[in-house]
């Protein structure tokens, strides 16, 4: 049977092995240690009866944005599929990122061609596509950058910001176009939104 539990130091070698077996993006042990020693609560493993790691999620907080969680790597051995292990691992990581680090959201990258992974993130875990990052992967494949908001109020605010940005952009473009065609300029309809409360980053 498969047991899902927080990652411990003794798991890292096994995680590294699972990663080498399942994924093309590989890391040296140092990187695993970096995660374990900085954000020990956010990574989880799935282990079988013999104590072999058959799945793991390696998560962290974005170094440039302390409110943004990030999934560095997620893998489940092919032989253990269809048990919902990936979903369980992700949910544990999401809870940890929210409760321990007060993250507003968690992001990740997925290969455009990886339909199975995409449907896990999109349909099951409710991540949304944030943007496309061209040639993100070592072999030049594009990635979807996806994000899940852990706090509904933050998500609402982000949505509002996005809308404002869109409207401002459109207004700017119409002004530019008007300038170019020498038509009388419309009254500025750029909407000024509320100023963000910029929290100090510790």
């Amino acid at each position, binding site marked *: 049977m498969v047991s899902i539990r*927080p990652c411990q130091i003794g798991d890292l070698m096994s995680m590294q*092995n699972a990663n080498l077996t399942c994924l093309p993006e590989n890391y*040296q042990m140092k990187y695993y240690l970096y995660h374990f020693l900085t954000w020990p609560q956010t990574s989880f493993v799935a282990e079988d009866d013999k104590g072999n790691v058959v799945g793991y999620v390696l998560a962290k907080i974005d170094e440039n944005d302390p409110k943004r969680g990030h999934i560095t790597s997620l893998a489940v051995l092919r032989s253990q599929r269809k048990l919902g292990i990936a979903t369980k691992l992700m949910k544990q990581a999401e809870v940890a990122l929210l409760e321990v680090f007060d993250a507003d959201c968690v992001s990740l990258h997925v290969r455009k061609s990886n339909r199975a992974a995409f449907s896990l993130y999109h349909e099951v875990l409710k991540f949304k596509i944030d943007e496309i990052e061209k040639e993100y992967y070592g072999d030049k494949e594009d990635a979807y950058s996806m994000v899940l908001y852990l706090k509904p109020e933050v998500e609402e605010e982000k949505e509002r910001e996005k809308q404002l940005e869109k409207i401002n952009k459109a207004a700017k473009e119409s002004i530019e176009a008007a300038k170019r065609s020498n038509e009388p300029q419309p009254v500025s309809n750029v909407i000024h939104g509320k100023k963000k409360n910029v929290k100090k980053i510790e």
Partner: protein
Amino acid sequence: MAPTKELTNKEITAIKNISKLFDDKKYSKGLKECNTILKNHPDNPDASCFKSLILYNLEQQYDARENALKTTKTLPTNSMAWHTLGYIYKLDKNYIDAATAFKNASKFNKESSQILKELAPLQLYSRDLEGLKETYATLLKLQPSYKPHWTGLVTTYHLMGQTKPALSVFERYLDTLEDKDLSGVKQTESILYRCMLHYELEEYDQALELLVNNEKKIIDKLWAISKHGDILLKKGDLAAAESKFRDLIKLNQDDLSIHKKLWESKNIKSLDNLSDEEISTLVSLYKELGSLYPKSLLIQKIPLLFLKDKQQFREHAVFYTKNFLSKGIPSLFNNLKCLYNNKEKVEIFSQLFLDQLQSLKEKQQLLGSDEKESPSTILWCLYYLAQHYDRTKDFSTSLSFINQAIDHTPTCLDLYVVKAKLYKHQGDLQKAYEEYDRARNLDLADRYLNTKCALYALRNNDPDTAEAIFSLIKDETQTLLFNIQEFQCIWYERELGKAYLRAGDNARAIKLFNLVDKNHLEYLEDQMDFHNHINKKLTMRSYIEFLRWEDQVYQNKPYIATGKAHVKAYLNHQNKPEVMAPLKKVPAIKKPATKPAQLEPKKDPNTGLTIPEDDDLNGKKFLVKQVNLMDSAQLILDNLLKNTNDIEIYSLACQVNTYQKKYLLVLKSLAKIKSIDENSPCYYDNLVNLVIKVSEDKEVSAIVKAAVEKQATFSSDVDSILVYNQTYLEKLGDNVTAQHRFVVGKIIAKLSPSSLDKALELILNVQGETDWKQCADNLQSLSLVSSELSSKYREKLHQQFPIANYFQPKVEN
């Protein structure tokens, strides 16, 4: 001592200039200036030290080191000279000598906190914890309000096992220096670390107090609640402990370790030998948990672990396995494997799955269900049965089931994977590889299949094919060896090494096993990178666990598996047995025709210096450099022997120590084997080997000889050995196995060449032998005694294991 000339103003300026040139990386110019100064002032410390550093950066590491060493000899009390030497050793990753150099540097400049700060991580690396304690004590005198010195001292005490001082220093640090309005994860860490220390000191009340008083502030709930439960268990407050573990189960139903603690809170320490009362407690517990959390597979599974009543067990098994079969979850067998040590349960599974098969064939329904199943359900039932009979060692039945499954749904990949395993277990590694490759070809995008197929190719002694398969998913701009080493791909290094080992190419095998050692050294060196990082993040609990893990970095399964093969490689090089399995002459898959583009010289990411090309691709140069093969093997054994109950490791130690004539050490290992399994044929084999060697060794002391004979209970002359050998099997009675007979026969063949018939009779009696791998090892060891016997043994093994590759009759070319 020659009078030291004064530096001219010009020269003083020149020295300042050298410093600037160094910073600007103008090394050649800087070197010139240094040499100019040194011509007139050969002992000038600044010029000399800069010269060392510049030489190192000009990739003349040897000269740099020599110069730095020389400087410390001519200026033995100059702190800067020692500092420079230490720095160069550090760049070489020679942390132990670096620590000594920095210590000397500090001796001659006691006020420098900079030197001590650089010394601390080096002392930690070399586990000079007493020295480290002193270093921090001094640093605290020099800079009493610098936080990392405090936490460094705490870590040192904790690592030394001096938990009480660790705790008191930590508390003093928190009282005096830490922000009073600490919040969030940092505050939690300081609370929980103290809790950890109290717990290790068995001060459970204090630990509990911390958790209870700070409950609102603690945000790492999983750890806190778990610890809370552990403390309550220790204090014997079982009801409260149970409540805590139930809280944890609410957060995560699938963590087996929490369930185990829950059982403990019901006073059930293990699932072995449960009383009826305990079983009924567990039955009602899991009924309750099952209704609270109906989706948890683990909760559904656990009753199978403790139910004893056959009827109840079967009913629950029907319930549990239903979903797996209907939905086609391939890992069902893997899931239930842990129960297969129990003969009764195995019987029940047999009957259950055969009944399910019958029910599906007749009615397309599973037992106890009215639903019509889809066609794939019967597929997964056949799939399970194939694995079941493989486990019960009924090869023909398992093969029949998997072939039925393949006829049913030939496009299902998993079937070929199981078929490959079936052949693997029977020793037909060729067919095993072929079946796995069949699976791989059905989904070329799947990296797991690619990796495992490469593994099967290596086990089939076909490294070229393995490389061809593996290179489909690896970076083509570097060689395979570089890739697997850079990403610390230990399994590939080990399996490739083992393939060479089986083929008798010990040099290459050792080279690859050395790569595994190197990877572990890298793990150790990683400590150096986190020293400053921890000072900022202060994740104390993880850091201590990390350092403790580093102390045992060689005691993990992959290293041990590699280490054993590594020692065998040295032994094989010493005694040269017959080759077990040659490499495939014609690989199954040819390497891609295109050569990788001119490979760029690789740079070390830390120093920016070029990593030299590998000039020893076949490992021969390294092997030739080994002064004593057995001493090299001993270094590996030293790591393997820590904390182990593995008879094979002790057996290897016996063999190595016997070669080294360290007979008393052999006795020690023998005693260990005997304590683990007194009837071990391995014990007897090594014992007799020792006695024979002692009898042949003219230089052995009388005391040692007597000790050996005492352990053996027979004298070390040939006749006595043979007499004892004759009675050995009788003494074992019902415990005699084919392996015992083999060992006894081998001894006769060794010592009494005129009694080969007798030896042969014993050796060829392989009745009851099911372990073809053990027999392959036997074949090798027998080849060292008599090639005639070993070829007859091979024929017999071929009959016993008809499809095992190693025992196929050799094709004469």
